[in-house]
């Protein structure tokens, strides 16, 4: 069979000692960068990129790939331990991972996310081998109308991720959308809501918003509540293993997450961030105990982590087969290949199967490295939580500052972190949740771009969008979800109504 021949070609390249070595170095560096707050996968890849110019092209891509998924993985560690998301996808892991850590289950959370990453990544790679052609065709069907529809669906779904009333969730999404408006308008080149700051021409940076809303606000809360308390964490290997019940609850979310991730990863432009949010929202909908979400439900970390890593793998499909990078990180990796004079694209698979399949196989090996590297490290990470909080948090603040400053050596970005930290503190004091705001911020600009593109293409005819099968279906689903949510706003859950009448 072709697939086996490809696997053999791939294995042959991937297990050469040099590639194995750089794969390991890449994974190690990636994990290390990812754990540092403020340094996401994109920053990590950009930092390592110049080193790879001296390597063989395959080795360079193997190493950069390792840095990429290593950083995505490492980001979840900081999310779980300290509520510091390094990438949009890690923000979802915060929702349930951080409460788990606070309940003394940090080891379990880290162990299970490692497993979820591995399973998601492996399934993503299988999709890369088996489904590439189908996935490419699928990705091409998605035009501006379809992108708009799926993102609107994602936004409305994100609002229902919250604990409290859906109106508050929607309000946070809306706030995120408004913040996302800042920056240069693509269609006209007009800078909007930039308040005369050239730093804001490209909008608020994700890192400053995530570090402020999640990190800084969390520290302000914890400084007072966590005084003198160290998190009581067991560090034995046994404490990391899930109970039978936890394992049972993990499997289905992990598989669903991989499916969701594999699907979204292949769509250039959406990628891991929307995949993790949608994965989370689906778990909350299908769960028979949605009230546990946000308070440390294991399903809430399994699905997004699995979705994230599956999406990371399938994001290579459009990059390697069409020459279309799905994300900024992918674009950097494509650039790395081009610096070596290799054009990623459809003929890469035919002309240089050793590169294509070698890289694909090395991803899988890299995922095994992630397991090997990280399971022993979990004990070390947990010990960080044993440091008394009043000694830990000043260090975390400095780490946030340095990480954000390193992004483009700008004090302005630190000021932004501060601004969003204060906003986050106020909103969280009022019992609002930050995750919907973040998804609004990430998806807002994409919603706007695609809607405006679609309206130009269809000459202002909104029905043309509804008449297309895929976008029409997605918009219909959105409408149903929105109606259901509106119903919940006006007729809130029984316990509140009952309490109201009883006075």
């Amino acid at each position, binding site marked *: 069979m072709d697939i086996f021949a490809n696997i053999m070609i791939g294995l042959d390249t991937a297990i050469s000692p040099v590639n194995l070595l750089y794969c390991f170095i890449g994974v190690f560096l990636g994990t290390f960068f990812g754990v540092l707050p403020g340094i996401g996968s994109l920053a990590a890849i*950009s930092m390592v*990129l*110049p080193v790879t*110019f001296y390597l063989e092209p395959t080795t360079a891509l193997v190493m950069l790939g390792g840095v990429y998924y290593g950083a995505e993985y490492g980001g979840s560690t900081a999310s779980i331990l300290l509520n510091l998301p390094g990438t949009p996808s890690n923000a979802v892991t915060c929702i349930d991972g951080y409460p788990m850590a606070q309940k003394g289950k940090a080891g379990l959370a880290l162990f299970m996310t490692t497993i979820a990453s591995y399973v998601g990544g492996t399934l993503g790679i299988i999709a890369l081998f088996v489904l590439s052609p189908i996935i490419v065709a699928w*990705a*091409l*069907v*998605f*035009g*501006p109308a379809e992108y708009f529809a799926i993102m609107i669906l994602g936004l409305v779904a994100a609002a229902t991720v919250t604990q409290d009333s859906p109106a508050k969730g929607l309000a946070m999404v809306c706030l995120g959308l408004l913040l996302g408006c800042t920056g*240069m308008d*693509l*269609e*006209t*080149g007009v800078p909007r809501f930039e308040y005369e700051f*050239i*730093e804001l*021409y*490209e909008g608020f940076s994700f890192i400053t918003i995530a570090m402020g809303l999640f990190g800084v606000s969390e520290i302000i809360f914890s400084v007072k509540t966590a005084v003198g308390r160290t998190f009581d964490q067991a560090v034995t290997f046994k404490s990391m293993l899930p109970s039978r019940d936890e394992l049972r609850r993990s499997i289905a979310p992990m598989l669903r997450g991989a499916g969701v991730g594999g699907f979204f990863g292949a769509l*250039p*432009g959406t990628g891991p961030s929307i995949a993790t949010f949608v994965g989370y929202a689906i778990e909350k909908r299908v769960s028979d105990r949605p009230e546990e979400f946000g308070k440390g439900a294991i399903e809430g970390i399994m699905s997004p982590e699995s979705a994230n890593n599956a999406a990371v793998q399938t994001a290579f499909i*459009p990059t390697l087969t*069409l*020459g*279309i*990078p799905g994300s*900024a990180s992918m*674009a*950097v*990796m*494509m*650039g*790395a290949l*081009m*610096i070596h*004079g290799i*054009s*990623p*694209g*459809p*003929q*890469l698979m*035919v002309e240089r199967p050793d590169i294509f399949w070698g890289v694909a196989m090395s991803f899988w090996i890299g995922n095994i490295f992630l397991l090997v590297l990280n399971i022993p490290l979990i004990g070390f990470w947990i010990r960080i939580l044993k440091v008394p909080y009043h000694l830990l948090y000043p260090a975390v603040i400095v780490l946030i500052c340095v990480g954000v400053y390193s992004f*483009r050596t700008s004090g302005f970005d630190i000021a932004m972190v501060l601004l969003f930290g204060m906003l986050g503190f106020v909103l969280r004091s009022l019992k609002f949740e930050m995750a919907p705001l973040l998804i609004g911020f990430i998806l807002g600009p994409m919603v706007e*771009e695609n809607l405006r*593109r679609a309206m*130009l*293409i269809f*000459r202002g005819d909104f029905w043309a969008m509804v008449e297309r099968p895929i976008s029409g279906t997605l918009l219909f689903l959105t409408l149903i979800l929105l109606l259901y949510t509106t119903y919940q706003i006006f007729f809130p859950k029984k316990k509140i109504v009952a309490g109201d009448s009883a006075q």
Partner: protein
Amino acid sequence: MKNLTRLSSCLASIVLLLSASIAQAAFPDKPITLIVPFKPGGSNDIVARQLGKQLSADWGQPVVIENKPGAGSDVGSAYTASQKADGYTIQIASVTFTMRPAIIAKQPFDAQNDFTRIALVGQSPLMLGVRPGAPADNAKDYFEYLRSKPGQLSYGATGVGSIQHFAGEILRKAIGSDIQAVQYKGGAPAMKDVMGDHIEFSIGSLTQMLPPYKAGQIKGLAVTSATRSESAPEIPTLQEVGVDGYEIVQWWGILGPKGIPGDIVNTLNSSINKVLKTSEFKEALAKKGSTPRPMSVPEFSAWMDKNFSTWIRVAKEQNIKK
């Protein structure tokens, strides 16, 4: 006494001469920073890194590539403009640099006057790419098709006032079509929507278009340069298919802050031109469909002036808003 004076003046002049020649030979005597005002991995970055690699081999001094992305390319350019004009901080600038003043109301610097022009590096044509199932196999028939469906068709570009947008608008006007420009965040997503039959065409960089073109996922109808590209000699130029005087190329040049001394500019220019003539550099550029184009300092300066005035004129003609 007289002799002594003569001797001393003689010595002085020798010292002067020596120091002058040392100063000449000594540039560069420390690492040079080459600013790339974009993220790593783009065409500017790739060209800059190849150039930097060969320059540092030539000079025996490291050339440090620093990526300063943001606000189009304005963040990096503003940074360069603010640096010391000693030749140790230079920047790569592309055709976009000369287009922005025509369409951006407010730039944090004066693109025409705040920079020293040093050298042109190379150029690359764009390619008119359509989906394989497009209803025509040659450019002439294709333009007929575009004209036959007024008010229905769209094409993809990469932002208002981008080279792709300028190229598209000029073509649109030349062939008398009312096709609508739709903006994307980069050539790749625009190309994806061409392949997926969501938009009609995209005039993209050869670097990006060549791989899918060679794999038959995109049909190349024409190139935008005055002569055919060596990377795809079978594709005619737009001039050949009847669009008179059409010539738009992507190019990369080297700039520095205003006021770099003339001899240093000349040293930089001749070192860069030396690199451009090596076969190593030619091959590196050919891989992305580009060719080196050495120019003297005055030639390059005239080239910049011509670009600035062309884009201001075109922006006005095509009603691309400032």
